């Protein structure tokens, strides 16, 4: 039962990805061609509200529902892993038109061939685990 809240938030996320159309290859193409404000508005709104909320949580020392202190773990310092990894991700994002969350939302929406992309994204993560020691981070 303690997992049901994650299922509900997941359902909310799935509906929002679909109704915002952010899970659509067409919207991603429109974004990378800078031909509409839609995607930039979505990400921009989420980040602005996110910055304010994160600041408030820290400022007001808000606890989570278990009464524990909310900790924002800083990302490790670095450049190569973020820029190179990010660029590789971006190539795939623009090619298939979906990042991992939207992939599974698409599958639920009925685009079952997205399973191919999702399966190979798991394989891609596996390959990273195999070669990570030889990559600059």
């Amino acid at each position, binding site marked *: 039962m303690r997992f049901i809240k994650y299922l509900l938030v*997941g359902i909310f996320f*799935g509906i929002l990805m679909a109704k*915002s159309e952010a899970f659509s290859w067409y919207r991603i193409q429109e974004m*990378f061609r800078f031909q509409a404000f839609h995607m930039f508005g979505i990400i921009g709104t989420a980040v602005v509200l996110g910055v304010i909320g*994160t600041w408030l949580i820290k400022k007001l020392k808000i606890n989570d529902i278990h009464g524990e202190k909310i900790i924002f773990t800083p990302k490790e310092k670095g450049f190569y892993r*973020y820029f190179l990894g990010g660029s590789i991700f971006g190539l*795939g994002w623009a090619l298939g038109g979906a990042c*991992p969350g939207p992939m599974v939302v698409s599958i639920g929406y009925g685009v079952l*061939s997205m399973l*191919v992309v999702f399966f190979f994204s798991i394989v891609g993560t596996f390959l990273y685990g195999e070669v990570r020691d030889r990559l600059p981070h």
Partner: protein
Amino acid sequence: MWEFLINPWPWWFSGAAISVTMFALILFGRSFGFSSNLRTLCAIATRRKVRFFDFDWKKETWNLIFLVGAIIGGYLANTYMNHGEAVQISQATITDLAALGFGEPSTSSSGVQPDELYAWENVLTIRGFLILAVAGLLVGFGTRYAGGCTSGHAISGLSDLQLPSLIAVIGFFTGGLIMTHLLYPFIF
């Protein structure tokens, strides 16, 4: 109200809804980062025999439940909240995509993903299959290398003003722009 919800959501409402998702997970004592699931699925598949995937994945069960919810959400959106129209993108994009051989978004298919990439008759050709496989490989490899995807870096990381996340997002756009503007003309 329902009328508003079944029509495509405006950007400000969609962006606010993403924030709600992130803060709900934060208040539950978790964080919003979807691609961790790919690593968890690798850990399950390799039964912890590979070092990078040797971690207690059961602690990540909540995120797999979130993933299952996202699939259900996609199903519900199409089944009960479908407004019966394809994605409405800008005319400029339609023109650009037509030059590459992509038709307009159409309700004769999903209306959200292009048949040229996702209809089975195209997926089940060597070329079509390779395109989707390579897209998946790049996303999965890149997201783990960068330590996060759109949710972990562009939303959660930028909200916490993390410089590494900003570098990752610049990377996302660098890769996306190279693919769209330099490589698409060769692929399509």
